């Protein structure tokens, strides 16, 4: 049977995510690369007590055009589905902006682990690469090093950091073929590419689905073996 991972709806793609699951959510922060329709489907599906691994918790207006409607992780906090967030940039830049996450965090409803962004990227990569842990020079001597092993190599101190893995990854790519090979667009590649490799089930929202063979083997960024489910955005929501 030719491999075909395309599903008919975002709802079908996230239907089996159970309460208590660990879910990676891709993108960087703005609308580019954000799997908005999958996030919305997870909001509507209602799974609770989620651990969310995501660069931000939703930043209002980040890298968006004025008036552009942006659906991001924020809806999951508004809907009280998240018990823990692992992120690098959890709150709006300005202290005057209050996000749904910030409210939940202030109310003590959600736990937070802040990770330096390079360590976060590397922990995701390690999760998808079968590497249990690694030593990085980042954050040595800071409060984010608290409780972590420090070790000296060649006269320099490094922190031991563990791999990040998840039950599900919700990501966005530009194009997929039916086998799940993916290409991205510009800086919207971002964390999508690492999360695809680090989750048991990777679900991709794409702008366009093409026939297997249409993507140049030299240009494929995420090989299809990492992808489990593909759903195309309706044209009007691309």
């Amino acid at each position, binding site marked *: 049977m030719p491999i075909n991972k395309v599903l008919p709806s975002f709802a079908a793609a996230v239907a089996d995510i159970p309460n208590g699951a660990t879910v990676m959510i891709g993108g960087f922060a703005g609308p580019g690369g954000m799997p908005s329709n999958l996030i919305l489907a997870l909001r509507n599906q209602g799974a609770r007590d989620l651990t969310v691994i995501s660069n931000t918790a939703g930043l209002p207006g980040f*890298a968006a055009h004025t008036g552009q409607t942006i659906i991001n992780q924020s809806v999951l906090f508004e809907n009280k589905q998240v018990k823990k967030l692992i992120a*690098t940039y959890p709150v709006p830049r300005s202290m005057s902006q209050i996000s749904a996450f910030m409210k939940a965090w202030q109310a003590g409803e959600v736990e937070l682990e802040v990770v330096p962004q390079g360590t976060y*990227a590397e922990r995701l990569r390690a999760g998808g690469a079968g590497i249990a842990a690694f030593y990085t020079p980042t954050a040595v001597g*800071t409060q984010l090093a608290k409780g972590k092993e420090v070790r000296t190599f060649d006269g320099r101190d490094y922190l031991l950091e563990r791999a990040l893995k998840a039950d599900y990854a919700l990501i966005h790519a530009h194009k997929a073929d039916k086998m799940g090979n993916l290409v991205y667009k*510009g800086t919207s590649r971002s964390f999508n590419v690492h999360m695809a490799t680090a989750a048991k089930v990777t679900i991709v929202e794409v702008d366009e689905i093409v026939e297997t063979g249409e993507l140049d083997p030299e240009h494929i960024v995420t090989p299809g073996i990492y992808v489990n489910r593909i759903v195309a955005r309706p044209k009007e929501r691309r």
Partner: protein
Amino acid sequence: MKQPMDHETMAMRAARELQDGNVVNLGIGIPGLASNFIPEGRSVIFHSENGVLGFGPLLDESDGDVDLINAGGQFVSAMPGMSFFSPADAFAMIRSGHIDVTIMGGLQVSERGDLANWMMPNRGIGNVGGSMDLAAGAGKIIVTMEHVTKDGQMKIVRKCSYPVTGLACVSLVITDLAVIEVTPKGLVLREVAPGYTAQDIQAVTEPKLIVAKDLKEVSL
């Protein structure tokens, strides 16, 4: 007459530190403005943590593409020789010493070059983003910031009271009042804003400054 530098002037001064061929990462705010003032004849390659190298000037929102942004969420322009890659690759470049210069904002810089810029303790929560990786990995770290806070607190201090981003990592501090180099012997006052004396700067700087023999007014 005393004339503090405005943000554009600080960015201009910071841009003078960029050498031909440098790979440069700019934070948002004053650092980002430096991209407008690259000295004539120098090619500088801009890097951003989200996974792009070799982009051009910032774009107005109306001209921007959501698929071409920097890590600060600003729209940037395409340039010949640009490349896209993953964040893990972007930070591999940072940690492995392939970024020659980074210009960042600061909340506090200590005598020995410790930097605090990721968390206001009174907020109780911080956005670390890529700041700690840049502090640990970038070749030369330039901090641009006001010399004192809005309510007059000193920001160049003996020891950071805010949570640190990195230890002994800052090379140069450019404030609205002065240009100060971090050296093994201590902080060296190299340049002052027009009308300021070394004493003026020392009065708003906690650690003892070493005044450079050739102390001069900031020139651009």
